Structures are given as C-alpha cells and as structure tokens.
C-alpha cells in the first residue's frame, strides 16, 4: 500500500537528504554489461557430438559460402551462463522505471494510457502472429477485415472518407499530410504555393513535417489571454502562396481553439488545405469530428488515444484520415473492399507513393481494433470524459501548490494543461527541470515539460488520461506539494535531485546537438573509459 504524503508533516521531517522519505527507493544493482561479465570458457549448453551420418552430409558446407560471407574469426560474444544472462536482464528491468511500475500522470501530450493485456494477447494469437506480409491477399483476408473494420470506425470518429494506416507515428503522419498537400497543389498546377501556416502550440512535427516536405513555415503565436491564434493573426499569415495550415487540436496547452472552423474557411478561401493533428484526440473523442470543422485531413496516434503501447520508441502507429478529394493522394497500398473480399490497391497514379513497408504496423492496428470493439461508442465517450475530468481535478488541486500557476487561466482545459513554475523559480532558483528530477524520487513518472518553442517559462505539462485513479492523482499532487515546500525551505534538496533513483542527474552540457553522444562508443570516445554519472 502506497503511503500518501502530508506536505506539512513531510516538510518537518526534512533534515538531511538521506533521511527524506519519498516512499520510493529504486532497486540498484551494480550491474555491468554482459561483455564485462564474460569469463572465457563459460558455456550454456553442452551439445552432444554430431552423428556420423550428419557429419558426413555437412562436412565442408561452410566452404560453399562465398569468402566474403565467411568469418575469419568467431564473433566476440560474451561467454556467460544462462542464469547469468537471465539475472542480468531481470536486474536491468528492475532498474527501469516504466509505465507498469509506477503511476504515470505526468507525461503530457503523450496520452499514456494503460494498454489492456487482453489486447496484447489478441495481437499475439498464432494466426495473426504467424502471418507473413508477402502472403497472397486471399490468405490475408482475416487481418485485412480487421484493418478495414478499424478504418470504418476511425472514418466515423474523424468525419472523413478514407483512412490509411501506413505511417508509423505522429510525425510520420504529419509528414504524410504535408506530402499530400504538396501533391494536391502540384496536381492543380499550383506549385508556387510554398508557405505552410502552423502555430507555436502545435506539435513541433507540424512545422517540421512541412519544412521536410519543402514548405516555408509561418508560425502563429497564441494570444497571451485567450490562448488562441486568432483571426487577425491568421489573416497576416495567409497569402497567395499559402499551401495550407497544419495545426494541432486541441493545442499542446489543452486549449481547444474555438475558431478552428473559421480558420479552415479562411484557408480554404485562400486556396489552401487544412490538416489537423489530433494525435491527442482523447479529450474530444466522440465530441467533435475534424471533418465537420472543415479539415481536409486529420491524424490519430493509435499508440496514444487508442491505447496501443508507446513501446519506448518502438512501433508506433498512426491513422491518417482524409476527405474524398484527397483519396487519390493517399500512400499505397490502399485497402479496398468490393463487398466480398478485401484487396490492396497499388494503382493510384497521383499517390504520394509508399511511406512505409507492407501493410503498416499491423499488431498495433489489431490492438486498437480490440480496444475500440471493447469500448464501443459509449465507452470511448466515457474515456474521453474521464480524461477531461481527471485533468480538471488535477488542475484544481495543483493550483494550490505554492509557486505553480497555469497558462491561460481563464480557459477551460481538456485532456492536459501547461503550468508554469516561474514564480517558484523567481522565489527559490529551482527550475522546472530540478523539480522534475526530484519528482523521480517519488516513484512516479516524471512530467513532460514542454515542446519547443518554449513560450511558457519553466513549463510543466501533465496529462493524467482516464486510466489513473484518484489515488494516483493524489499521490502526484502530494509529491508536488512536498517538492514545492522543499524548494522554499531547502532548495538544495531539489537542485541536487534525484536522490533515490538509479542514476544521478544527467548533465546535458552540450553546446549543440551535434555534440550529443548518441552511442556508447561515442560516449567513451568523448569521456574516456570512465563510467558515466
């Protein structure tokens, strides 16, 4: 049973860093890599000697390989026993803080839903698991039926006409949108349209995708009071060169721009295309449809709203839904149903081509299918409502934390909100990053600070989703109270956190991204042979 925290009482107990009870202590093993554990001669399986008949058959078989494919020396694999290997990976997993080891209220804009185990099981059913994407269509009818079923439901939720599951993530979906917008203008001899409008509280993949597709990017900034971009600012961005608008709805700040439909009309009047990013669809699911607001295309992240795992940069899946006029530009293959059977249509002359291999991230499509089927329309609506209710409970309670304020305080927030610790920083010198490191000491997931550009100082962006209990939320809130109290009384505790985690503070003193060591080998080259941290 998790102990809850009384901030006042807890503050009294703060004496030395070592004596602070956060209710959490990460298991810490001095675990070296398997290579470092290697002892020459250690074997796992003692294999019986090969039978003479087989030996006769296989002698010289290696010599049939081309010389370039043959190893001169055996691979330098670590020599460790099976129990050592098992122990190694168990320990590594124990030292990992993941979604299933503590509550995750904090990671805003990621919609960290619980992934029901049943859906994982379904995706691993042998009949699905053993399919090969190169099997003939006739042998794939079952899985294509599932995909088409989810396509029908998402079409309905989006208010659109067709759906593709080809992109592997939200940014990939935005890029698919940008390519379709480009193809649309090319098909109409409107190549001069090279300006894409976006806004600073959209996901950064919106401007990034537009730029990658060759557009110039015009960014709008939200009004400091309303949090909306506003008609007047949009008019200043629209020109005869406008290719379209790519914005996120609701915004990264949890504010839903009340004028989206009007923006769509203005952009259409100027000859542009409207693309909505609904990677964070959770707060409005079943309550609004992008198509009804005038969007030409919209994308959903199955690994967010539709509960498939985020997978730590593993397989994501994105559904892009479009209006009729954009179907010819969709990536191939496009899934079709003629009333009897399903087939993959590769014959789209105006298509942007392939954006990924084979059918898309099929296991995620299956899990999302299972999720929607289990939830039903009422369930999806309830999930959305609870996500918003949880968030608004969190907002009300967090605003009692000293030094914390919320952006756009007059605006109702949906599934997430962007707070600011500016006051706390000005009072104590504790930054949001310090605060977040300290949060890790409480055995809960740290929060997402902000996308770039950071227009809110010292930002904090939690998103509780519908899957967190009141007890989870209260624990998160109590941790905030305690850390704030620490910041005001003994800021050093917070500035030197974390104290109860496996690793100490990461030091990102890199002057530019080109100096970041992205691999272990590069890190060693930069830092010598010492251990990190």
């Amino acid at each position, binding site marked *: 049973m998790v102990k809850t925290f009384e901030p006042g009482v807890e503050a009294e107990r703060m004496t030395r860093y070592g004596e602070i009870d956060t209710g959490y202590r990460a298991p810490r093993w001095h675990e070296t890599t398997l290579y470092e554990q290697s002892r020459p001669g250690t074997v796992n399986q003692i294999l019986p000697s090969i039978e003479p008949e087989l030996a006769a058959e296989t002698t010289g078989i290696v010599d049939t390989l081309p010389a370039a494919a043959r190893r001169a020396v055996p691979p330098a694999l670590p020599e460790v026993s099976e129990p050592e290997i098992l122990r190694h990976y168990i320990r590594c997993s124990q030292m990992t803080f993941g979604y299933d080891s503590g509550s995750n209220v904090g990671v805003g*804009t990621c919609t960290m839903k619980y992934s029901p185990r049943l859906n994982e099981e379904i995706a691993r059913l042998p009949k699905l698991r053993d399919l090969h994407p190169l099997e003939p269509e006739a042998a794939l009818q079952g899985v294509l039926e599932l995909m088409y079923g989810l396509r029908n439901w998402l079409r309905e939720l989006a208010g659109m006409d067709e759906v593709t599951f080809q992109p592997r993530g939200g*940014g990939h979906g935005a890029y698919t949108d940008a390519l379709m917008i480009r193809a649309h203008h090319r098909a109409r001899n409107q190549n001069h349209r090279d300006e894409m409008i976006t806004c*600073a509280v959209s996901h*950064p*993949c919106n*401007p*990034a995708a537009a*730029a990658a597709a060759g*557009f*110039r*990017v*015009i*960014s*709008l*900034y939200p009004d*400091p009071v309303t949090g909306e971009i506003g008609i*007047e*600012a*949009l*008019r*200043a*961005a629209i020109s005869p060169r406008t290719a379209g608008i790519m914005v996120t709805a609701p915004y990264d700040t949890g504010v839903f721009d009340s004028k989206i439909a009007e923006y769509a009309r203005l952009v259409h009047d100027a000859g542009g295309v409207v693309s909505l990013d609904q990677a964070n669809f959770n707060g409005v699911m079943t309550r609004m449809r992008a198509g009804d607001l005038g969007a030409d295309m919209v994308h959903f992240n199955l690994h967010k709203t539709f509960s498939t795992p985020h997978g730590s940069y593993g397989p994501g899946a994105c559904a892009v839904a479009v209006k009729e006029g954009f179907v010819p530009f969709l990536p191939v293959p496009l899934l079709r149903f003629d009333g009897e059977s399903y087939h993959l249509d590769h014959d789209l002359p105006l298509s942007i081509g392939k954006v990924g291999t084979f059918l898309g991230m099929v296991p995620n499509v299956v899990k999302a299918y299972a999720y929607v089927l289990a939830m039903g329309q009422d369930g999806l609506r309830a999930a959305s409502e609870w996500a918003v209710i949880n968030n608004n409970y969190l907002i009300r309670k967090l605003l009692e934390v000293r030094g914390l304020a919320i952006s756009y305080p007059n605006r109702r927030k949906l599934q997430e909100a962007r707070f600011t610790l500016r006051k706390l*920083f*000005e009072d104590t*010198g504790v930054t949001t*990053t310090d605060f977040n490191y300290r949060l890790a000491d409480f055995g809960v997931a740290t929060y*997402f*600070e*902000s*996308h*770039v*550009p*950071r*227009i809110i100082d010292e930002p904090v962006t939690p998103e509780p989703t519908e899957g967190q209990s009141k007890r989870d939320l209260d624990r998160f809130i109590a941790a905030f109270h305690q850390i704030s109290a620490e910041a005001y009384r003994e800021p050093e505790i917070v500035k030197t956190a974390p104290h109860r985690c496996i690793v100490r503070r990461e030091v*990102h*003193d*890199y*002057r*530019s*991204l080109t100096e*970041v060591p992205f691999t272990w080998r590069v890190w060693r080259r930069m830092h010598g042979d010492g251990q990190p941290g």
Partner: protein
Amino acid sequence: MANPAEHRRRLGLIVNPLAGIGGRVGLKGSDGTTIVARALALGAVPSAEQRAAQTLAALCDLADAVVLGTYPAEMGARTARACGFEPALLGSIVSGRTTADDTRRAASDLHRWGAELLLFAGGDGTARDVAAATGMALPVIGIPAGVKIHSSVFAVTPRRAAEVVRGFVAGRSRLEEREVLDVDEDLFRSGVVAPRLFGCLPVPCVHDLVQRAKAGSRSDPSTTRGVALGVLEEMERDPEALYILGPGSTVKAVGDQLGLETTLLGVDLVQGGRLLGRDLSEAQLLEAIDRHRARIVVTAIGGQGHVFGRGNQQLSPRLIRQVGRDNILVIATLDKLHALEGPLRVDTGDPDCDQLLEGYVRVITGPRDQVVWRVVA
C-alpha cells in the same frame, strides 16, 4: 570542491551604485551629478547593490569555483562579500561620489585583469559606459537596476542574470551581439523619447538544447546568421527592389552575409547585392527611393521591442508611408522575440503612422522560417 586557483574562471562585477536612483523620485534617469544630488535630496535610496545581491546570492555555490574581480566598496566589493564571495579588488574610488568615469575605468581594469564575463548592475547609462570602455572585447550581462532599460544587454530579472552566468560558466552559452541604446535624458524629461544606438556588447545567450527538445527541435533558427539567410531568400524573390537596411546587429548580419560593408548604427541602401549608400539621412533615403520600389529591413531594437522610433529615427513616418506597410521586412531571432514577452512596438512620433503599422506582421526568424507577431503603438 574548489578547483585549483589557476583554473578558476574570472568574472568581473561592476555595481553602479547610483543607477536607478532617479526613478522612484520621478526624475526619469540618474545621469550626471546634478541629477544624482537632486535625487538624493528628494530622499531616493540607492537600490543597485540590492539588485546585484539578488544575482550574486543565486550564485553563492560558485564562490569557490570562480574568482570575482571588482571595484571597492559600493561598486561591488561590499555586495560580493555580503553574498559569500572573496573578491579580488581593483582600482580605487571616492566612496559616496562615484561617477560614470569610475564605471569606465572599472570595465577597462577588469578586462585587463582577465575577466571572462562582466556582470554589471545599472541601466542604459551604465551599459553605455561599459560599451565605451570595452566594446566587443568583453562579454557582459546586465543586471537591470536602472530607470531606463532600452538596451537589450540586460537579463529580465536579477535572478535570470544568475542563470545566464551559470550557463556561461558551464559552457552552455553562445555570444550574441546586443544593442546598447540610451535616450537623451534632458529631452526625455521634457517628454521626447529619442533613444540613440550607441553600440553593441557581446551577451551570452543560454540554450538547453538537449533538455528542451522532446524529439529534436527545429534546425536552430535562432541565430542572427539564420535570420540574415531568411532575408536573403526574400531578396532573391524580389531582386529588383531597393533594400533599406536599418540599424542594429541583426540587420548588420544581412550586410555581412552579402559581403557588404554596411553600418551597425546607420541606415544603408542595398540593391542587387550592391551597397548604394551608407549611413544615410531621411532626406537622402527619400531621394533615393523616389519613383523606385523599396523595402525596409528592420529589427526590434533593444529590450522593449521597438521596430520604429528607437535608434532608427531616419526611418521617418514619411519614408515608411512611401515604402508602404507591405514592403517592411521585420526580422529578429526567436530568442529575442520570446524575451520580449509581449508585442513589438512602434513609436514613430506620428500617431497615424503608428496606427498604420499596428496589427500583426510577419517576422523573418530564419531560413524558410517566419512567425506572425503583434505590433502595438
């Protein structure tokens, strides 16, 4: 743990003890001994030391890691000691009777002593004195303590100044040229705001690139060079037009990128990659653009975001009207826009012209990168 003394970073500190003294008593400035005497007579209490102490207190953990060099008594030593620093003392002053000359001498002495970064608490007048003494030779960060803060060399608050120092010491900063502006206080007192650009100072800008990006930020457009490349793109789109380049380091970068000897403080004229005139007056500009289409390239100058009416009076209402609102290219780094925490401003002295400029404008922030920002009078 303290580093060996020879490896300790050298920071300089100058407190202009009289900065800001005229503000509270309504004198709109503190330049000159007469005004200081009047302010003191009116009961003004000096607060610059207190502002500097807010910065130093936030840096007390660095007391062993850096050496702070400063001038005696109220020009820095007192504040430094109060915040736990053991400062290296330079120079000498007549306590209670410091002048602008002391600031200039202190800046020069600290530069010679080997300061890598100079913290100074003051206002525009102090910044001007520092710029006159050390110019682009010594990186600085201003602790805002003056009445007038038009220059963009100051941190938003004393606490923010501490974070800049921290970033600089950790090597997490990049130097940017920032403008030093000052108004003529006598005119200011009679209601005329006519700030002039007096030069530039190198100011460290701190970026936490890695921490800030969730999945990688956009290719860093926040450099003046990036902004200049964005302007060159516009020039390629419209190569026939005359380009009037306003003052300021951001616009100067456009000239640099074109390989032209444009001025930092003046207004220059460029066409098709050629420099047609340097440091031109309003009359010369009007003559040059007569019956020729022209575009104005301006940046937000100083800490308050003025696009017109601060340091670029040559770009008069008449000139602006003749060029037309649609032919004004406003340019700025994203950092600078964000640091404004508010709209861009115009103050041309002509309310009708200001009204013409109000609303939303596009601002060039980098290659293929623009933002829309609000402009108010």
